[in-house]
């Protein structure tokens, strides 16, 4: 598939949404609402449950919705500041009770609107990234569809990040890129290719730890193998001294960058 075909696949309305993964992977789920500051954002489905019999965990998933009504209610998976603040509240709660945090990312980007700006969309994302850098509990993120820019990073400043094989991760939507650079939003396919947005690109850049094979016809089996991977990673992350966790997370991002240092 070309990067543009992957982009269309990642956005396909037939793909399982964030809540489908949570409901398949976790047991005894209780959804928690609200940021305790302003409101509740339906684009973020979050709460607690068991990852396995003896592993309580916090889940935070961006959910695009499955029909028109739920998509409108969830703003097509574009979280508002209160959504990011709800996510941060639950991460802090997870830290307090020594639970790992599992995030599922699927967004075109953070919601773009006047009220989001008034309530500090930039500040909300900034705070999540900052606090996730210091969070004293493991965080693992899976990009299941679209990983759209800062709105995705606000849930992906994690110890390990995975992507589904046809998921995309990008600093800007290819439409936005084409419109800014070439004043032509029709050149989306070119932009998608130039930006390098596919899971294999991310693997090459060492921005993600691994790629998850898609098998939506056997969704339960696919989720079993995701749970298996999560358990394996958590075992590894929890076996190291606590101070190492945030140190390793720091260095995971610290090393990323390409530049020359010659005079």
């Amino acid at each position, binding site marked *: 598939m070309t990067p543009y075909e992957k982009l269309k696949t990642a956005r396909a309305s037939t793909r399982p949404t964030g809540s489908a993964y949570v409901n398949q992977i976790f047991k005894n789920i209780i959804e928690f609402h609200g940021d305790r500051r302003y409101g509740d954002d339906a684009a973020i489905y979050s709460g607690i449950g068991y990852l396995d019999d003896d592993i309580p965990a916090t889940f935070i998933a961006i959910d695009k919705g499955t029909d028109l009504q739920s998509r409108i209610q969830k703003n097509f998976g574009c979280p508002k500041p209160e959504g990011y603040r709800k996510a941060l509240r639950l991460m802090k709660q997870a830290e307090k009770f020594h639970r790992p945090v599992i995030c599922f990312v699927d967004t075109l980007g*953070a919601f*773009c*609107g*006047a009220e*989001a*700006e*008034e*309530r*500090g*969309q*930039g*500040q909300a*994302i*900034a*705070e999540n*990234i*900052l*606090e996730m*850098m*210091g969070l004293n509990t493991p965080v693992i993120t899976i990009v299941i569809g679209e990983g759209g*820019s*800062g709105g995705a*990073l*606000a849930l992906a*400043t994690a110890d390990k990040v995975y992507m589904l094989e046809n998921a995309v*991760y*990008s*600093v*800007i939507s290819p439409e*936005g*890129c084409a419109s*800014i*650079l070439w004043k032509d939003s029709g050149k989306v396919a070119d932009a998608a290719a*130039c*930006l*390098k*947005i596919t899971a294999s*690109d*991310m693997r090459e*850049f060492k*921005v993600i730890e691994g790629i998850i094979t898609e098998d939506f016809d056997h969704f339960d089996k696919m989720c079993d193998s995701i749970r298996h991977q999560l358990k394996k990673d958590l075992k590894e992350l929890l076996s190291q001294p606590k101070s190492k966790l945030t140190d390793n*997370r*720091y260095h995971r*991002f*610290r090393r*990323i*960058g*390409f*530049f*020359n*240092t*010659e*005079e």
Partner: protein
Amino acid sequence: MANIFTNITNFIQSTSQMPDVEALIRKTENVTLVCKGCNNEASKHQLLRNHMICPQCGKYFRLGGKERIRLLADRKSYTDMFDKFESVDFLEFPGYAEKLEKSKKSTSEKDAVTVGTARLGGNEFAYFVMDSRFMMASMGSVLGEKITSIFEYATEHSLPVIGFTASGGARMQEGIISLMQMAKVSGAVKRHSNEGNLYITVLTDPTTGGCTASFAMQGDIILAEPKALVGFAGRRVVEQTTKSKLPDNFQSAEFLLEHGFVDAIIPREKLRETLINILNIHSVKGGKA
């Protein structure tokens, strides 16, 4: 009597520390600039003596990184650091190499940020100043590495950081690596903060996109220049998405102040004394007093 004596000593001391504007002027070609606010012309030297504020209409001219520090910090107190890094076109992105060359030529800088250490009223601090003249200070690997490095240096030496932000957002010509710089810098901010160090951001025109959504909004104290544009999503994008006309002051520093996201708006001519005051207050730690 003692009080008067102290005041005179302080006055003499602060005057001897005042930024050496004349030295900067001697090194700067006296070109004529046109104000974007009123279209009147002003000479560069005249503007430098006036904090780069238009003498006719009061509009703020955008400042380059080095200029900003030389107009603000104690005379001869600044050292630019970590200035070896140069951007590479690792994605072979159409037009990137040319854009880099063009910006390098027009600004005589290697990239969009200057970092280093300086003093304000005798207080040593670390700084980063973003330069919107260089590819709209979009945030690539070099910018991320330099700001991270200066935060690490400041953490190691227990120095406060003052950051002047200005940015069009991520540098899309560096793809996902550009997005990752937001997390990379945030990690360094967090470590600096965990050690009890002070971080002040001064939001200047324009601070947008990924810059707003990371280190610009992570300061312990967030100041802004009057009328600076500060926001996450672009105004045009918001208008197109919501199909409505936004108020004139939308995403201005004043708009942010009203909504509770900025501590104070400080006019350029008051910035030096404000920062000195903040640094002085933080130089006495509660426990030690």
